[in-house]
């Protein structure tokens, strides 16, 4: 019994020490260097700052390049909110009909969903198309792109969840005289709340952190999203590592908040499909 207890504590402490060293130290490194002044941060040492410059650095990062970070945050928030709303509504509509009404189209649609999940998008033809549509370098264009690229994930989660809602419910609503619109938006959609939360949280983090699509489809400092500011800052503050780390810290806060509140839903969404019943 005592040997077992000893083993329990030793493995526990070892695991914690290793996790701290491998996964926590890099974050502490970001934090301590975000608080230093410019010459001290340039040493890239993992040490406490001799003097903390939290406020100075914060102000410097926010003010840099004509308040670019503020613009970027506004852009990223609009992008994330609108794209995720579209993903939830359109994804749930597809998942609903796909699950409830098998037809000769179902096979094709399932194939499209998988293709959307696996295939990398064709970049330059998309840019060419967006230019033709007048959507290149516009936030609306990027919103539609994010919806197109993440629809598959959203459809899969909604379809699986809708399969657990009894059909009798639909029938009762239809008997009461509900049309398809009422049936879906009034009866079914509210029941999808748990899976909708999962889709919202997982996709918000993914779209907020997206770098590649804004890089291709929304270039230009004026339109920057938060991930792109990070890139612009890197060359601009070539030696101002303190500001660079402060910037990383600031854009890590939204995902951190999501993580603290929705840890369970995030993990559920990301592991969906791992345990096939």
């Amino acid at each position, binding site marked *: 019994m005592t040997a077992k207890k000893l083993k329990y504590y030793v493995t526990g402490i070892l695991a914690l020490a290793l996790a701290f060293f491998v996964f926590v130290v890099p974050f502490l490194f970001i934090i301590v260097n975000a608080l230093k002044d410019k010459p001290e941060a340039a040493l890239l040492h993992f040490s406490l700052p001799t003097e903390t410059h939290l406020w100075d650095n914060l102000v410097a990062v926010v003010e840099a390049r004509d308040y670019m970070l503020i613009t970027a945050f506004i852009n990223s928030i609009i992008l994330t909110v609108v794209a995720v709303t579209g993903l939830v509504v359109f994804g749930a509509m597809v998942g609903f009909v796909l699950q409830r009404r098998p037809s000769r189209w179902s096979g094709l649609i399932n194939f499209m969903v998988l293709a959307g999940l696996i295939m990398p998008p064709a970049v330059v033809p998309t840019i060419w198309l967006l230019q033709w549509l007048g959507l290149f370098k516009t936030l609306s264009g990027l919103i539609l792109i994010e919806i197109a690229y993440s629809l598959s994930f959203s459809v899969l989660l909604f379809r699986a969840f809708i399969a657990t809602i009894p059909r009798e419910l639909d029938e009762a609503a239809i008997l009461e005289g509900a049309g398809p619109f009422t049936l879906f938006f009034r009866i079914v959609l509210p029941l999808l709340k748990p899976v909708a939360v999962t889709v919202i949280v997982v996709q918000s983090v993914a779209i907020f952190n997206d770098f590649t699509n804004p890089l291709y489809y929304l270039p230009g400092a004026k339109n920057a999203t938060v991930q792109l500011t990070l890139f612009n800052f890197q060359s601009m503050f070539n030696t101002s590592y303190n500001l660079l780390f402060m910037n990383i810290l600031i854009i890590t806060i939204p*995902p951190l908040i999501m993580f603290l509140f929705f840890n369970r839903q995030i993990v559920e969404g990301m592991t969906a499909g791992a345990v096939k019943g």
Partner: protein
Amino acid sequence: MTTLGKKGSRRGLAAAYPTWFYLPAAIIFGVLFLFPTFASLFFSLTRWTLFQYSFIGLANFRQFFSEPFLVWGLVNTLIYAVVTSGSKVVLGMLLGILLTSNVMVRGLLRAIVFFPVLVSTIGVGITFTMLMHPTNGLINDVVAVFGLKGPAWLTDPRFALMSVAFVDVWKGVGLATVIYIAGIVSIPAEYYEAAKMDGANALQRFWNITLPLARPATVTVIILSLIGGLRSFDLIWAMTKGGPGFTTDVVASVIYKQYQAGFYGLSTAGNVVLFVLVAAIVVPLSFALNRKEVEA
């Protein structure tokens, strides 16, 4: 069942679940994803300025498989995908087993391992570029404690690709771990108890129970991380931009570089190569892995 069944069932279904519900999603997906994909098959055969094109047959593809810097991209993509995917399977499974066992502060450990998944890839890339600095970086400071001299992780061509792959695993192993946790938790505890009764040791229990029954998790981790690895771009771009030389270029970074240089036809050919690569690896593999599962 009764109201929608038998009599007039088709009309009932059509009325309650209208096809036009597909429409918004179908338009967005069809126009912005499918159409460019088909268009890429054509434009990959052209020299293209976005305003005009001239048909040049397979010249772009011939260039892709003969120019050393493009071939590098292809080879590196394969190495990177296999290394990151393999590491995530092994480490994810080990962590999954540890974090489903009766270990101290299990919840905290799970959170710590998972959190990097949610952090900006670019932020992680920049941070590790600093940590891997050859003379000032924290990693080589630690190596020096053991009396060794660490290499220039990101600027030495022998190490650069593997260094980026390491960071990819660092950031992504949390996802593999939670997938394994979900898979391992779903294995009935009776199997382990029965095996213990029969005197199976920990290694035997792992080999005969955990490994085969966590197979769906393994398949998911392999497929997900291969897709991610083959398409990987942002981490490489944040850390090395394909350098030194072309030693960390992958197909996705070649596509971006050729696009920036204005070689739109060649860039699109790279995209077609990437489709084929992803489809040719992932589709047969998922068929093979899922079939075996049914047989077992």
